[in-house]
Each structure stands twice: as structure tokens, then as C-alpha cells.
């Protein structure tokens, strides 16, 4: 007989084991799906998870995809750890990209070392501005940040759409929905000749270190943590709980905005309709898979980044629809949530009593 018993104390080992278990279960289920679809499961999984990163170029692409995921997830971890459910990082990314793209277009055909920092800063500010909307509405008008931040995603995408089709569209662009190419001074430098990996990765790594330090070592981080668990306690301890909420949204918005900057000033080099393959949403999975811990998030962003690459390779080589990438992302989150059950409950096998 199997009996499910509640754990007295969530196990620390299981806490770090469940993400691994979730990834394993995702592979098993993925293989099963490939099998049902008529592909050889092992071969398909190989094309999905190994082939794409087998060479230098592939590895650079992996880091390229992991960079925005990691950046956004770091920002989101501030929100999620303090129980603020910002799920609009995609919108903050888009708006950050719009603002920084606008600034980059202002410097069109100009050169100067000062341009890139201004463009980057503009992106962070754009993301913060956009994240402040759900934050302020939540703190002063008691609205639900999940709804507001989610809906604002679509607003930002429509704003971007309007801009690239209308006022900001490239005058020499034959009416394609895109802006001019940014000048080289407004682009993030590439790290290696012939590879697309760019300096944005340093932004992500800096975010990792800073977030770890702030959250675990500073009074500010402690106050954020307390405010997240209970606003009542924060008030009692004398912290400014509402300011904390706004602050975590701003941090998260800045990170998403920076991720947007990284995309448009890195591999894309201009604004167009599709600047992000839903990095902002996928980063939610990354944040949780990484257990909201900075180091965990680095690993999680790499794992999830593979699903983007794998989907493309699998489509090219095996004609598997690229949307399987999203299926894999969904499965990771699903299995992670399911195996989190083991955090609080353990399964006991008991010989049947007779």
C-alpha cells in the first residue's frame, strides 16, 4: 500500500533535487511524445538537446538565448520572492526596447562612446517606467498585479507595432515594419568574430552577482523579504512596505528592460515587430526552475535556452514543428510544480496489514 505522508519539515535536499527531477521527467515525457508522433525518441531528443550545442557556434547561440532569460529571471526573482506576481516582464522588455530603440534612433548616424551607455540606461528606465504602472496601481488602488502586468504586455506590443509601422518606420525600408539600423555606436560589441554572442552577457552576470548580494547580504534585501511574506509584519517592524513593493517592481522592470536593450542592440540591431520570442514569459519558468536563487537561475536559463535552439534544429533536421520548444517549456514548469509536491509530502510504501 502506498501512503502519502506530510513532511514535518520540507527537505533541503529535495528542494534542489526537484528541478533536476523535473528536467528528467520532461525528457522522458518528451521522448514519449516524439515516439507517439512517429519519431525515434532518442534521435529526436539528441537533435533537440545535444546537436544544437555541439559546436562553438551553437554554444554561442545558447549563451545568446540564455542571456535575456537569465536577466529577466533575476529581476523576476525579486518580485516572486516578495510575493509580487509580476508576469508582465515581456511587456517591460518590449517597452524598454522601445525607449532605448527610440534613443538609439536619435543618435542615428552619430558616433561616440557615450551613446551606448545612454541607450542601455534608457532601456532600463523604460522597463522601470512600465513596471511602475502595475506597482503603483497595486499599492495605491489595490488592483491585482497579475492582471495589470499581463494586460500591459499586449499594450506594449501594440505600441511597438504602431511605432515600427508608423512614425518610426525606416523611410528607405519599402514599408517593411521596421526602423532604421542603429549606428554601430549604439550596438553592443560582439565578443568573438563570427559569433553572435555579445557584451550583454556581462549585464546578466552583473545582475546575478548584484542580486545575490542585495538579497542575502543587505538590510534592503531583508526588508524586501519581510515585506513579501507579510505586509503586516513589515508595518509592525517599521519598514515601508509599499515602497518595497514598488522597488521590487522597478528592479524587475529594469532587468527586463535591459534584456530588451540586449536584444535590439545586440543580434537585431533595429526595432521590428518581433524582438522577443516571449523571453519575458519563459523567464518565469526559468525563475522558478532556478528556485529563485541567482546561481540556480544561471543553470535554469541555460537549460531553458536549449529548448529554443532545439526546437529550431529539430524542425530543420526532422521536420518536427518548432512549437515543440514551447511544449518542452510548458512540461518543465508542469513537472516542476508537480514534483514540488514532494517538498511537503513524502510517499511511504507500507506492507498491507493483515
Amino acid at each position, binding site marked *: 500500500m502506498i501512503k502519502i505522508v506530510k513532511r514535518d519539515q520540507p527537505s533541503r535536499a529535495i528542494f534542489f533535487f526537484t528541478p533536476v527531477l523535473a528536467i528528467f521527467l520532461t525528457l522522458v515525457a518528451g521522448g514519449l511524445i516524439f515516439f507517439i508522433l512517429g519519431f525515434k525518441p532518442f534521435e529526436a531528443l539528441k537533435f533537440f538537446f545535444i546537436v544544437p550545442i555541439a559546436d562553438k557556434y551553437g554554444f554561442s547561440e545558447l549563451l545568446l538565448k540564455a542571456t535575456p532569460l537569465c536577466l529577466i529571471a533575476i529581476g523576476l526573482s525579486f518580485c516572486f520572492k516578495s510575493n509580487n506576481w509580476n508576469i508582465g516582464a515581456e511587456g517591460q522588455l518590449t517597452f524598454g526596447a522601445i525607449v532605448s530603440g527610440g534613443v538609439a534612433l536619435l543618435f542615428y548616424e552619430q558616433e561616440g562612446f557615450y551613446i551606448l551607455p545612454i541607450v542601455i540606461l534608457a532601456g532600463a528606465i523604460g522597463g522601470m517606467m512600465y513596471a511602475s504602472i502595475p506597482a503603483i496601481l497595486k499599492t495605491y488602488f489595490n488592483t491585482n498585479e497579475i492582471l495589470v502586468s499581463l494586460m500591459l504586455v499586449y499594450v506594449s506590443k501594440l505600441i511597438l507595432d504602431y511605432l515600427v509601422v508608423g512614425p518610426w518606420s525606416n523611410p528607405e525600408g519599402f514599408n517593411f515594419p521596421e526602423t532604421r539600423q542603429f549606428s554601430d555606436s549604439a550596438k553592443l560589441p560582439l565578443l568573438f568574430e563570427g559569433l553572435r554572442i555579445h557584451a550583454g552577457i556581462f549585464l546578466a552576470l552583473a545582475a546575478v552577482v548584484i542580486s545575490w548580494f542585495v538579497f542575502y*547580504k543587505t538590510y534592503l534585501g531583508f526588508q524586501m523579504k519581510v515585506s513579501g511574506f507579510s505586509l*503586516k*509584519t513589515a508595518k*509592525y*517592524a517599521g519598514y515601508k512596505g509599499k515602497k518595497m513593493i514598488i522597488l521590487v517592481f522597478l528592479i524587475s522592470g529594469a532587468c527586463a528592460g535591459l534584456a530588451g536593450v540586449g536584444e535590439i542592440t545586440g543580434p537585431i540591431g533595429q526595432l521590428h515587430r518581433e524582438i522577443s520570442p516571449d523571453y519575458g514569459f519563459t523567464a518565469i519558468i526559468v525563475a522558478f526552475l532556478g528556485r529563485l536563487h541567482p546561481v540556480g537561475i544561471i543553470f535554469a536559463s541555460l537549460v531553458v535556452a536549449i529548448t529554443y535552439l532545439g526546437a529550431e534544429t529539430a524542425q530543420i533536421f526532422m521536420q518536427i514543428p518548432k512549437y515543440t520548444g514551447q511544449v518542452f517549456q510548458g512540461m518543465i514548469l508542469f513537472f516542476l510544480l508537480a514534483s514540488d509536491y514532494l517538498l511537503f509530502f513524502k510517499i511511504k510504501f507500507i506492507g498491507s496489514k493483515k
Partner: protein
Amino acid sequence: MNTNLKISNVTKIYPGCVANDNVSLEFNSGKIYALLGENGAGKSTLVKILSGVIIPDEGNIYLNENNLKLNSPLDAKKNDIGMVFQHFNLFETLSVFENLIIDSDEERESLREKIDTIMKKYNFSIDLDIPVLNLSAGQKQKVEIIRCLIRSPKVLIMDEPTSVLTEQETSELFLSLKKFSEEGILIIYITHKLKEVMQLCDEVAVMRRGKLVSVSEIKNENIESLANKMVGQNLKTIKKKKAKASSDQLIKITNLNFTSEDPFETNLMDINFSVNRGECLGIAGISGNGQSELFQVLSGEIISEKKSIEFNNNYIGDLSPQERREYLMAFSPEDRLEQAAIPQMKIFENVALNNFKSSNFFNNGLINENKIKEHSKKIISDFNVNTDNIELKSQFLSGGNLQKLIIGRELITSPDLLICFNPTWGLDVGAINYIHETLIKINEQNKSIILISTDTDELLKLSDKISVIHKGKLSKIMNAEEVTSEKLGILMGGAN
């Protein structure tokens, strides 16, 4: 028509705790039975089993020799078992009559007649057509009782019915219960208040840690013997020494008002009082009469006019809790798990919530973990918190240990004034004793206490002066020796 209710070998196991361990009990109509035990002794689980809310793992319930299968509260109702829970199950915005007709299958007219007869018979006077939210707690309870009586039950179970009632309402309730019992309804009365058992009941069953400890007749027991059975050890009774008369004023509240935007909060009106050094001012009242708002105003969670609070010759009405702590005030709020501490955080992190500048928990914005841990260890040993692991999440502390930790955290900075709100609510007798001893000790060290509490006995035991809060207004301040619980009861009910 005799009713016989038998509980036979009932066991209910929850993860990590045996709530009922092979409990067998027998009840006969004509008597009032007390089921006595501390919080967590298993009495609530047992009555929930009787009322079909919980299904036992093992054991049977027999009513007049019939084996009952109680799989839902509806089954209990069908089998003539009525239950009045500690927390009322009434729709506040519906009228009394609407509340009563919801779970009745009778026609409106006949139901109304029936209710009228019941009310006449037991001398209840409640307007059936006003919304429930306009009723007092005592009246709401009567509505719940009427709801049971409509079905003419054989068994009526009352779960801690007096926790929200005034002294007067309590004696009215006891009269009704005695009347029901005379009419052949079997009454099971669940409580942890010993005085009530002595007043009301004929037989008493004591539970401790899920087990039935004893069944005896009231006439063979007294308060001390029951208390010892309930706790399982001999309790020393603590008495407060009479305070030395001190005229050194520590805190003075002048014309303090608070108007809330939230309709569920109580406005405070023209609060005036002062506390001298070494004194304990008790503030009594039925919960929801402005205690929580008063606590928040005193702690600085709600800011008021600067001059309305004078502490140690400083005006501090507009200061935040953190700033007030620097003036040597300390606060222990009512809600241990949602306000005073964060269960998901470790013990030492919870200690850091009382951030007193000179304790150096945070230097230049950085956490000084060693300092906090050192401090936490001291609290744990000084205040008898039953653990040696400060890395433990505080959710794994029992209520009593958590409260000791909180009081310890507040007191280790040796404040001049401790403001506490229901400090022993829901604790077991051992922990209550410890907290009471600690509070008395503070007074002996010439420090002051403002004790806001809904427990009259506690107030009478610890206070030097007592005032009663009713609908956001304080009564005049009385010397504790001149006050009786009856008098407090009258004031708590709003009369003068």
C-alpha cells in the same frame, strides 16, 4: 425518552499528530457534560467527528444503540445532532430569518411560527427581519442555537461558546442550556475555562494530547484538581505583588483620535490615559471594539498627532514603530503568525525584526548575521524557548515557544514600556504561566506594561489599573483591586 450517545474507540491521526487516540465516552441525556482540555488536546477534533465534519480513522459513534455513519454535517443533522461552532456560520448581510430558512426544508409560514414558539419558550428576543450584522455576538449565538432547535435535536454540542460573550450574555446562555437539559436534550459543552465547567456542568471529561484522561462528576472536583488534570502537572499559582506606588509618569495619551477609512475597523474616540513607571495598565474589552486600532496607534503602525502621545517627556505621536523603539518602547502584537513573526523565516531572522540601533543588526545597510545570531541565542536561553537551533524556521515552534521568542525579542533591549495585545491567546497553561511570570517581572524592574487583552482573568491577575474599551471609547481608569469580573463584564457590554 432518554438519549444515549456513545463514542467507542475513536482514533483520528493527522500527519505528525494523533488528534484522538482511542477515545471512548458515554453520554446520557438529562446531564450537561463538559469536555475539557487545552488547545490542541483533541476536543475540537472529537466534536467535529460527532458533527460529521471529520471522518474518524477508526471507531464508531452510537446514538441510542444505533451505529451512526456520519460522513457529512448533513448526516449529523439528520441524526438529531446539533452543533454550535465557536465561529458563527451566518451570512452577515442576510436577515436572521433568511439565515434560518437556508438550511430548512419547511415552508416560510410554518417555520416562522416554529421560530416564534421557540423564542417565546426560551425568552429569546431577536428581531427576525434585521440583518445579522446588526446583532451582538450573544444574539448571533442565539440565532445559531435556534437553528439547531428548529430540528428538535437530541444532542446539542457547544464549542467554546463563551469566547465572544460578555459576562452577562454568558449567564444568560447558561440559563438556556440548563433549560434545554431539563427538557431532555443532551448537552456537550466544550471549553478550556475551568470556572464555567464548575458553574454549569454535571460531569466532566478531560482530554490531554489526544487521549481521554479522566471522566468524573463535578461535585468531586474543584478548579485546581481539574487544572492539574488538564495540564498534567501541578501548577504553582502565581500572584502579583502589589506595586509600589509610583508617581513617575512614563507615557501619557491626550485626546487621541483615529478615524478609519475601512468600514470594518473601529474608530477611536478621545482616548486619554497615562501609565506610571512600574505599572501595568490593563485594557479589557470584547474583541473588535478598537483594541487592534489602539495597539496600532500606540505602536506607530498608525501615525497620529505628534502631541497626542507623550513618552518619557518626548512627543512621539508621529513617529514610526522603528523610531519609537529607539525611545525604549517594545511591542508584542496579537497575531503571532501573521504579524509578530514570519513563520517561513528562521528564528534568528525573526529576531532581526526588532531592529534596535544599538543592537547593531545592520551596519551600513549590510546584515550583521553574527550579531543577530549571538542575540538570538541569548533570547532562546534567557526566555526558555524550547529549541537550540536558531536556524530552525519559526513555523516549527509551538505557539508558546513562538510567543516566548517574540516577548524575548522585545524585552532583550530592556525597554521602558511593553505594549502587548492578547499575549497568551491560544497558548497552553504552561506557556501562559511563563508569560505571566515574565510580565510580572518586568513590573518589578520598574518597567511599565500596557496589556490589551480579551481575557478578563489575565487582566485581573496582572494589572494595577484597568480600563475597558467599548466601541472605540475607553471607560474611566479603575484601580484593579476595586474591580470585579462582573463589573468589567457590564462595562464591556457598553453599559455604565
